[in-house]
């Protein structure tokens, strides 16, 4: 907390020790996956352990540093496995989901925040309740609607629709909270100047809500990029797999290609982690604006 500054950094040593321990806890699994990915092998062992291992041999075996550096897992995953295709599928689906999801959530959230109309409360509450629908309940009916009624099995459009629409409730709630904090006076004065509602929405509200829109886009993208159960259900052709389905393909069932998995996981995770870290400055304001107002 806001301790007076006479206590120097030295007095905070216990804090740093604790934080560093937690840094190790946080980073270890990530370093581990890097180690396996760059090991050039499919196994889970970082190094081979001799028959009668000493304490140091064991210690070496848990150090997240590969015995030999090799890019072979990365090259094979792209040349021998159709991973590039899966990654491309994921990019297409996630990008389209982001665009559609942000559009749907922004328009709806703006109406819920600015207009008072019959059905508003019911709509918001139903969005909230829909968050509690168990995914397993929806999967079979969704399959019937998407594949049998709309004929969108193994099709990008089906997956994009599902992702962008199931993400709406969370995004709408978050955006509405943020829109609520934007003073109405701005819009009212624009209205006096003769601006239409659409102009106000696009020219005034959206630019002001940039942090929340950025977070909405991030979450829409992450939903599509990270989801695998529905993707596995609706994409039954191997060349239509998305990256998560493909990664699970490497280490699911009897398959134990941990090297391919690790290499693929690194390639898949880097863009999303980078995006996340890039947008994280918006995270706090975007997420909590609605809630913090009390």
């Amino acid at each position, binding site marked *: 907390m806001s301790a007076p500054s006479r206590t120097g950094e030295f007095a905070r040593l216990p804090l740093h020790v604790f934080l560093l321990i937690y840094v190790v806890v946080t980073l270890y699994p*990530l370093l581990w996956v890097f180690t396996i990915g760059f090991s050039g092998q499919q196994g889970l062992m970082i190094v081979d352990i001799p028959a009668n291992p000493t304490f140091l041999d064991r210690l070496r075996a*848990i150090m997240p540093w590969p015995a030999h550096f090799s890019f072979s897992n990365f090259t094979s995953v792209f040349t021998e496995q159709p991973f590039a295709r899966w990654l491309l599928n994921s990019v297409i689906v996630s990008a389209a989901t982001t665009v559609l999801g942000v559009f749907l959530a922004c328009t709806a959230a703006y109406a819920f925040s600015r207009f008072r109309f019959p059905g508003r409360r019911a709509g*918001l509450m*139903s969005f909230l309740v829909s968050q509690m629908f168990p995914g397993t*309940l929806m999967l*079979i009916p969704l399959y019937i*609607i998407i594949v049998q009624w709309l004929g969108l099995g193994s099709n990008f459009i089906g997956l994009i629709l599902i992702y962008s*629409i199931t993400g709406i409730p969370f995004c709408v709630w978050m955006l509405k909270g943020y829109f609520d904090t934007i003073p109405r006076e701005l819009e009212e004065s624009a209205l006096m100047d003769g601006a239409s509602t659409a102009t106000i929405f696009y020219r005034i509200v959206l630019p002001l809500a940039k942090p929340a829109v950025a977070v909405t886009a991030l979450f829409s993208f992450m939903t599509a990029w990270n989801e695998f159960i529905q993707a596995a259900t609706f994409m039954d052709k191997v060349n239509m797999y998305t990256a998560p389905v493909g990664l699970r393909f490497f280490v699911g069932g009897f398959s134990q290609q941990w090297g391919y998995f690790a290499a693929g996981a690194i390639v898949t995770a880097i863009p*999303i982690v980078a995006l996340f870290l890039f947008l994280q400055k918006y*995270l706090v304001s975007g997420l909590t604006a609605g809630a913090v107002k009390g």
Partner: protein
Amino acid sequence: MSQKPSHRRRFAAGLVAALVVGVGLSHWTLVRARVQENRARAERVALVSLNALVDLVERAGGVGDSVRRAVAAFARENGSLTAIRVVAFDGLSLEASTASADGGDKAAPRRLAREEKPLYDQGQRLRAAVETNRQEGAARKEEIEIAPSASGGLALAAPLEKDGAVVGLVAVETTPLPSPPRTSWLAPLAAALIPALAFLVLAVPIAERRWVLAVVAAALLLGTMVAYGRYAFATIAGDRRVTERTVAGEVTAEAARASSVASELSLGDPRTLHPGSWDADRFRRPLEMIAPDGTVHEAKLAESLAGAAARTRQVFGALTVLALAVLAFVGFGSATRLGATLRKHRQAYTYTFPALFGMLLLVFLPFLYGAVLSFSDMSLYTSQAPIGDLFSKLWVGLKNFTDILGDFHVATSTAAGLVWNYQNIYWTLGITIIWTVANVAYGVGMGLFLALILNTKGLLARPIYRVIFILPWAMPNYITALIWKGMFHQQFGVFNQIIQMFGGTPVSWFEKTSTSLFACIATNAWLSVPFMMVISLGALQSISADLYEAARVDGATRWQQFRSITLPSLKPALVPAVILSVIWTFNMFNIIYLVSAGEPGHSTEILITQAYKFAFEQYRYGYAAAYSMVIFAILLAYGVWQNKVTKATEGI
């Protein structure tokens, strides 16, 4: 609206709308039923021909010149089959063919060409179907395949048997289907116009008495629907009679042709042909609608008509209810009011429409469908059944729910101690609660703790810590799950290396419930910290420093400041976050599914993964839907309770 609305005009409009909906949909149903009947008739006629042909080919021994002669003679006699092909599995040979493509150097007999593999595969499918049905003693797989042919007719294929084994197939195509009978549009037009005009006349003396208008309009609508229903059923019954007569005629004609071919080629005694079994369904079960002498079994026909009548009543009953709803909706002014509301709040509804429409189609509709499913016993075998069956044949009422909730065999006591029943919902619920509480508690505790530390003013390397601690949230959670699964590997996993480093024995993490659950919780706890940390950090930063200043002036201790300033300021941000994360964790599918997969023996399953296994490993769709509804009910109850306690949704 300054003018007082006219009830008469509203009910007139309501009646017209209801008639258009009611009669229109009824007419559409009737036309569809007639098209279906027409197709069913063509199928049965084609099946009679095909079965007669198969009967002859089997008599001719299935292979050789006698088969070719029999097929040629049959094709000469029966002009409705355009391309007859007989395939024998033995030697992959095309034994006989009347198809125009199989002339010249491609004439039968010859080996099947590579591009004719689909024909061979079809034969193998039929063989498998026949064998499956015989083994199971049931009719589950269709033994005759019927599909539309390229020329607008039907393409049929039947298995060819010899001594009780399937040795080949007979495939035929028919001439294009007869076009369905035209259904006059005069009847529906009259059915819509007459009651509408009658209402206009009757409404004059009634004037503006609202309820009388309603009753008259409803009576007219009801009368119309009943009359139109009778007309529709009479039409359907007429079609059905035509079908039976046509099929009976076909059986007689086919029997005469077959016996003449049989005696001409001396294929045994023509009297041993059994035309009675030719009129059969796709499982080759005789329908027995036609008596051996070629007349229609009247009792059987009456039975089938009674079934059709019941279905017609069901459909028309539903349509009548719909039409009455339309009438009431327009007549009592709800439609006008709805229109006025929509116009008044046009902007709001335009902005929300895309999202709401999508939600209705892909969230609420599937939910409703799932809710209906939970009252049925739909499974993999019945998954192709039409929606109507969910309410009739497959409907089991509350059985799924009583099976799930009424099963209290959580454990049995044996000599070796308690044996838990891991499939029991109360066991799984217990695991789910432990899972949720442990994860949320750790997430909130550690998240808040880290946030408090990171909120220290002037802490060295604060942004670096922050970025590192956020990483688990940024990582895709299925990757995290698979990484941790690897780290908990019994032989090669890192955790067992550490244990061995200190001289311990390696743990088989996924062979005991407690360690298996621990592995899952450790994984999820790791990734649930950042969310809470970010939320807490945001809330902490929004607390004004003046508050602490004032508290210090008043001589409050650090602890008192935390209790009376920090915690209350965190509450508005933390409470919704906790509610959300309880719901998310409760339904967190990926971690359990990927890390422990429920091992050992489904004991570490949480409710949502268990429901998934019921649906996609046991294929009990109805049961799984009911199970999911129970999950939903639990969460809803939790949400309502939380809302009461915290008033989180007040003032939206």
